[in-house]
């Protein structure tokens, strides 16, 4: 006779465990880490480039880039002044905690204040795989359309900030900001939001101030 065994275990619990080990490693080194997620083309790399340049001389920044095959994005971050580590996922649609763990062994965390992890461009899978970062950021963009929170609710749940990029295109693209934000409000009440353009620089100052504030607050909390 077959016997029923209750399990009730989250399917990605192994990844979750490894993610919390990664976070302990960041904590021990007093390095703040963020996971930047978005669809392909939303402007993750542009935002990271602007962030590295904008915080130059204020924070020491490392970058881990997940890409299916190329290193273009890591090269851009390196050119902007960060120490960049490339992870080629070999076709995988997301980064996971194992990949981040191996990337961490190549980064000198003692020489950094902030690690920015650029996830693979994808609005589905990355949400399920924790990496061990302290905060996660979703980059949305005007040309993607205003229905994305409704189509990809999992992505909008659980992120700590939403950056709405390419606002310079608002005059040319139909985009109902109210409709977009109403979707976000239900999925993630009170989430921090930034409207900006990496192209014109409009709105970037608010994002940079928030991020720097998050890093400072983290460093203060680690001293206690």
């Amino acid at each position, binding site marked *: 006779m*077959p016997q029923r*065994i209750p*399990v009730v*275990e989250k399917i990605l619990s192994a*990844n979750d465990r490894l993610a919390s080990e990664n976070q302990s490693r960041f904590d021990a080194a007093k390095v703040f880490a963020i996971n930047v997620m978005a669809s392909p083309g939303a402007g993750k790399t542009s935002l990271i480039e602007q962030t590295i340049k904008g915080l130059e001389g204020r924070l020491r920044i490392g970058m881990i880039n997940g890409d299916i095959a190329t290193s273009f994005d890591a090269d851009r971050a390196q050119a902007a002044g960060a120490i960049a580590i490339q992870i080629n996922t070999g076709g995988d649609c997301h980064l996971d905690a194992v990949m981040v763990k191996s990337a961490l062994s190549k980064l000198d965390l003692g020489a950094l204040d902030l690690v920015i992890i650029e996830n693979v461009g994808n609005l589905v899978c990355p949400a399920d795989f924790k990496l061990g970062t302290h905060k996660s950021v979703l980059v949305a963009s005007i040309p993607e359309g205003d229905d994305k929170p409704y189509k990809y609710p*999992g992505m909008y749940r659980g992120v700590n900030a939403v950056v709405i990029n390419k606002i310079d295109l608002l005059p040319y693209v139909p985009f109902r900001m109210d409709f977009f934000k*109403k979707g976000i409000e239900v999925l993630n009440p009170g989430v921090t939001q930034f409207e900006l353009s990496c192209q014109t620089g409009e709105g970037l100052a608010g994002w940079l101030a928030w991020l720097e504030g998050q890093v400072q607050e983290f460093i203060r909390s680690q001293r206690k």
Partner: protein
Amino acid sequence: MHELAVTESLLEIAVRHAQTQNASRITDLYLVLGQWSSIVDDSIQFYWDIISDGTIAKGATLHFRRVPVLLTCQDCGKEYQPASEEFACPCCGGTHVKVKTGEEFHLEAIDVEE
């Protein structure tokens, strides 16, 4: 397509729990997937048939229980299933809601033989 990673994890969890009961074979797995968890049943089944081969779970049947999204309005208390492009409360229009169900993503139980 992260179903391969998901399926590998599923196999690891099932085999670990079966071994604690000294079971020699896993015959059935019961998965609970919320509507908002981004998992495709067919893909898990496809990978399962490949990766369970040669394990004590070979040939085990996967049962998927899909849980619909249910939101609770924090303003008026109404429970409702959101429409595709309208998440706000259909009663009072409130957007202050809690997700009651629909994000599940776990293995609930397995059937084993000694």
